[in-house]
């Protein structure tokens, strides 16, 4: 039982990072129906920005988080304008391949400039531990979970209660109708990319602190797993992405804890295939009918 609770604690802290990344996937998919393969790499860039400003400028956790989020938001807007906007009306497969291209570009441009080696992240947060019986909770984990929850609440507020949030929901429901109602579709899509990328940047900084190491290809696997989380929760749904992220985090730590940690990634993908076959719309997703 103790081991189970301990795995649960680790799973929740990892899962809240996945949830942050999954939110970006789900928002972008909701609005332009694109699996943004480059999203995992935006998260990697976020981790590197956080690394650079803390190592060379020596600033603390909160300012580093904000700088990283802002730069990722900018990067997200640039990616959308340069790579995805010209293709908005072409075949889905063309945009998907472009997204893979952008993902490779970010990875290898980063590798070209900073090298392929793994770097160790500076210690930004107190890493002393709290003990509850046999369960050990690192203060870092508490910070990570709370940062993630705060950002998710902020996002929920923006989407539900602000004008731009209303515009985002309108564009995702029906782009043409939204345009006819006077909503600026282009800037709404850019804003969605900015928010999604900012959350990924925050996730990058948090994961750098949590695992204490970053490298240019770090975004590939977590990016895919966050996508699995978004699909599980129901793609397009914000609470779904949170539930999905936590579930994937917990699944992963349980597989590592009780089974073989080498099968961790396989378990997540097997889970994805099972969801896609049994309930492709996810647990909170809407069913869409096929139209001719």
């Amino acid at each position: 039982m103790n081991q189970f609770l301990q795995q649960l604690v680790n799973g929740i802290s990892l899962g809240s990072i996945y949830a942050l990344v999954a939110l970006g996937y789900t928002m972008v998919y909701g609005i332009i129906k694109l699996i943004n393969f480059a999203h995992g790499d935006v998260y990697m860039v976020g981790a590197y920005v956080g690394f650079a400003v803390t190592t060379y400028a020596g600033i603390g956790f909160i300012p580093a988080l904000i700088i990283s989020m802002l730069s990722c938001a900018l990067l997200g807007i640039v990616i959308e304008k340069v790579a995805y906007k010209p293709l908005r009306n072409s075949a889905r497969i063309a945009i998907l391949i472009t997204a893979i291209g952008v993902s490779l570009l970010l990875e290898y441009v980063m590798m070209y400039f900073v090298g392929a080696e793994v770097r160790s992240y500076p210690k930004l947060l107190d890493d002393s531990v709290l003990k509850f019986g046999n369960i050990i909770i690192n203060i870092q984990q508490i910070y990570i979970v709370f940062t993630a929850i705060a950002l998710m609440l902020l996002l929920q507020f923006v989407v539900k209660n602000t004008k731009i949030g209303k515009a985002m929901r309108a564009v995702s429901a029906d782009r043409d109708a939204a345009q006819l109602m006077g909503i600026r579709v282009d800037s709404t899509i850019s804003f969605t990319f900015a928010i999604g990328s900012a959350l990924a940047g925050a996730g990058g900084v948090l994961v750098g602190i949590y695992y204490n190491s970053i490298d240019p290809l770090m975004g590939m696997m977590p990016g895919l797993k966050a996508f699995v989380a978004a699909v599980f929760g129901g793609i397009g749904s914000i609470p779904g992405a949170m539930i999905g992220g936590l579930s994937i985090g917990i699944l992963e730590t349980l597989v590592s804890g009780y089974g073989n940690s080498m099968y961790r990634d396989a378990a997540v993908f097997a889970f994805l295939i099972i969801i896609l076959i049994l309930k492709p719309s996810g647990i909170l997703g809407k069913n869409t009918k096929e139209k001719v």
Partner: protein
Amino acid sequence: MNSMKVINKKNILILIVIIVFYAVAQALINNGTINNFYEITLATICINIILAVSLNLVTGFTGQFSLGHAGFMSIGAYVGALINMEMNSTSGFLAGILAGAAAAAIVGILIGIPTLRLKGDYLAIATLGMAEIIRVVFLNMDDITNGAAGLNGIPRFTNWMWLFIFTALTIILINNFVHSSYGRACISIREDEIAAESMGVNTTMYKVMAFAIGAFFAGIAGALYSSYFYFIKPSIFGFMKSIDILVIVVFGGMGSITGSVIAAVVLAVLTTFLQSYSELRMIIYALLLIVIMIFRPQGLMGTKEITDLFKIVKKNEKNQ
């Protein structure tokens, strides 16, 4: 019906072209113009042609976006290598290729039946996940596959002759398949799945068939690879390998076998020249993907083949 006979003008012409092509390359190898270094490029080209043409059948002709081709390649590579190491003879090599291809095809069918119900993006992610699962399984079968360290000292039987034979066979067989009634059914699925279904095409069967055939040839490519490079390990067949193959197909044109062949040659030569700058090569690949999709989404050849060129010439002659 002249075209129904096996021995006709067209087939004889194709045979002559194939033999001349083989003989010229063999002569260049013999007199040393193609040295050991370029021979590796030549082998890479052949293996990539097999991979790209087989992926083109799935993605280009049938329209099923697969990101897991390297998974099938790895099955062929491991099965082929294990049989090859056990028997250590040419017949063992050929048996390994056949068994590897068959194993890949069987796995293709088993995976295809559930996943091919998915469409577009979801299918891409599911096939990607499936290839990752295959890789992790090989990684963990320590007793048989030697885990992450991989298999070493696989006997080398793959040479220019076998590479050429299998490449030519792949191109001819897949080309024939595409131009048969089965192939037309596959193309109809790409054009409009709902319309094809309502015209009585059994879409699930044809999708699984294309997937299995693609997996079969990817298995051949994997077995050839393992016997050429002596050494395989699971990380060779990761996500990046699938992307490499996809880049060839997209660059050449989805739905053009000629395109895949040309793209495999061009990209292999590019890779040879950029060997010492592997990051730069990936940046170029990435830019190539983005630029092609924005400015020429149909790729180099679109859905055209080199034989279409002759048809145009003939038509012009008739008109005059």
